């Protein structure tokens, strides 16, 4: 069975003081089901992806909770958690079900409500995406691990830090004009350098900010103008320090190689990418593992501006995690919706010319698990 994106919807990413987690999810889901021409009650199954609600919002059991809010009663309702890869993972599960013929129309909703929590609570919650006994419990925050990787990269490859900062510059520039982006404005290297260190040498403006948001897609084996032609999930050693080379994201490499094979393409046939740039250094490492730059040269790739909307390989066409925003468990679903909107010619001021094939990479933790989707216009 082919798997199509039949409809999508999302909220603006940002601080939604007047909306709770359920409100955000319902808004995105209704937009998606309206576009698909289906009422929520005619959906076969719902998958809800979320990373941190039990800690940040004291809410669990989100499959049934969101299904109820939408009037999806008497159906399969499942919640998926895989840290930053939650969204990609939920899409993968729906994809597998549609391939297997166990459903015809599945609603996938990613949602995260972060800004009710103060920053220290968010750092604490984010750290649960890594190992408690041997990382968090001895003082390593998620951001500190990224900083360790950044320094290692800078020193091993003698890379200018400005090249890596350009990852954030690209995402921000691409977000200008994106109505749903959290930060639809440019960011300069100078501004990044002036921002405080979150963990030296990683600056605060090199990582994502807390955000609220929800995105939804209706995946269907019946009809749709864009097709998901590959969906692959791969894991890696959970703790980054046990990996043979901590600067190589093997889960990204393996998942993307599987996906290229499944789609019967090479990476050169991918017209544009949505990656998980929850920090500048992770974005650079992902570009290398996806095959778009040789190991150790990803910084040169982004340093010369490849990734901008008018460049040879646009990356994060609405701003990515950095500038569109990173409501963690929703981000992977935003990516699918954004790729579909580019392929349908519905990307407004961010529209790319003549694109046929897009790739979405959803990464959990420091690459402990990664999900790659390849989507094509029919």
């Amino acid at each position, binding site marked *: 069975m082919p798997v199509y994106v039949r409809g999508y919807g999302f909220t603006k990413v940002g601080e939604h003081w007047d909306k709770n987690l359920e409100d955000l999810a319902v808004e995105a889901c209704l937009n998606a089901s309206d576009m698909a021409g289906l009422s929520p009650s005619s959906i076969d199954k719902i998958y809800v992806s979320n990373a941190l609600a039990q*800690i940040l919002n004291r809410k669990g059991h989100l499959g049934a909770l969101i299904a109820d809010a939408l009037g999806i009663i008497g159906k399969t309702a499942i919640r998926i958690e895989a840290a930053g890869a939650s969204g990609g993972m939920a899409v993968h599960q729906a994809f597998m079900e549609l391939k297997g013929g166990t459903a015809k129309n599945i609603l996938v909703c990613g949602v995260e409500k972060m800004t009710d929590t103060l*920053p*220290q*609570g968010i*750092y*604490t919650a984010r*750290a*649960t995406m890594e190992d*408690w*006994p*041997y*990382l*968090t*419990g*001895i*003082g*390593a*925050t998620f*951001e*500190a*691990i990224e*900083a*360790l*990787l950044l*320094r*290692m990269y800078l*020193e091993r490859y003698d890379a200018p830090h400005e090249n890596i900062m350009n990852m954030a510059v690209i995402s921000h520039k691409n977000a200008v004009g994106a109505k749903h982006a959290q930060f639809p404005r440019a960011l300069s290297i100078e501004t990044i350098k002036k921002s*405080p*260190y*979150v*963990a*030296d*040498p*990683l600056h605060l403006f090199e990582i994502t900010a807390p955000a609220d948001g929800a995105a939804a897609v209706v995946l269907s084996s019946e009809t749709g103008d864009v097709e998901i032609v590959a969906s692959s999930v791969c894991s890696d*050693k959970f*703790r980054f*320090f*046990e990996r043979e080379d*901590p600067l190589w994201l093997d889960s990204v490499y393996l998942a993307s190689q599987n996906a290229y094979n499944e789609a019967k393409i090479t990476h050169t046939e991918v017209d544009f990418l949505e990656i998980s740039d929850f920090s500048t250094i992770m974005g650079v490492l992902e570009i290398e593992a996806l095959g778009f730059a040789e190991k150790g040269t990803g910084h040169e790739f982004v340093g010369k501006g490849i990734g901008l909307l008018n460049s040879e390989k646009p990356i994060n066409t609405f701003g990515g995690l950095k500038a569109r925003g990173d409501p963690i468990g929703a981000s992977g679903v935003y990516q699918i919706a954004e790729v579909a909107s580019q392929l349908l010619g519905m990307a407004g001021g961010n529209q790319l010319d003549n694109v046929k094939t897009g790739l979405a990479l959803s990464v959990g933790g420091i690459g402990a698990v990664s999900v790659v989707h390849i989507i094509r216009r029919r």
Partner: protein
Amino acid sequence: MMPREMVPEYWRNKKIYLRPTGTICKKCGAKYFPPRKVCIKCGSREMEEYTLSEKGRVISWTVVRYPTEEFKDYAPYVLGLIELDDGIRLVAQISDVNLEEIHTGMRVRLAIRRAFEESESGIIRYVFKFVPDFTEK
């Protein structure tokens, strides 16, 4: 996460926190930290305790300025990715060091230090840290 709920987890791991201990596979000799029940290289379940080297070198480092709740009274503090002389890598805080002297390649040795206090009435957690090793050049 409420720290008090983590007391049993600390108690279970206390031996490792006070003297870093991993496992070594009796079949293929692969060494692991943290300990594993199953060798992920050869699949063997015959694993023995293995005491890690006490010395190593810094292969990357950072200064944690925005900590989690448990460490809020201690920031900023130095955190290192350390490669021990037996090849095992781990992450640990680096104590007794100022920012001018820390550098990649710096020799460090094991020390047991306070991690954090859980509350006024809670337990004081101790954990492995590393300090500069001036006993060798």
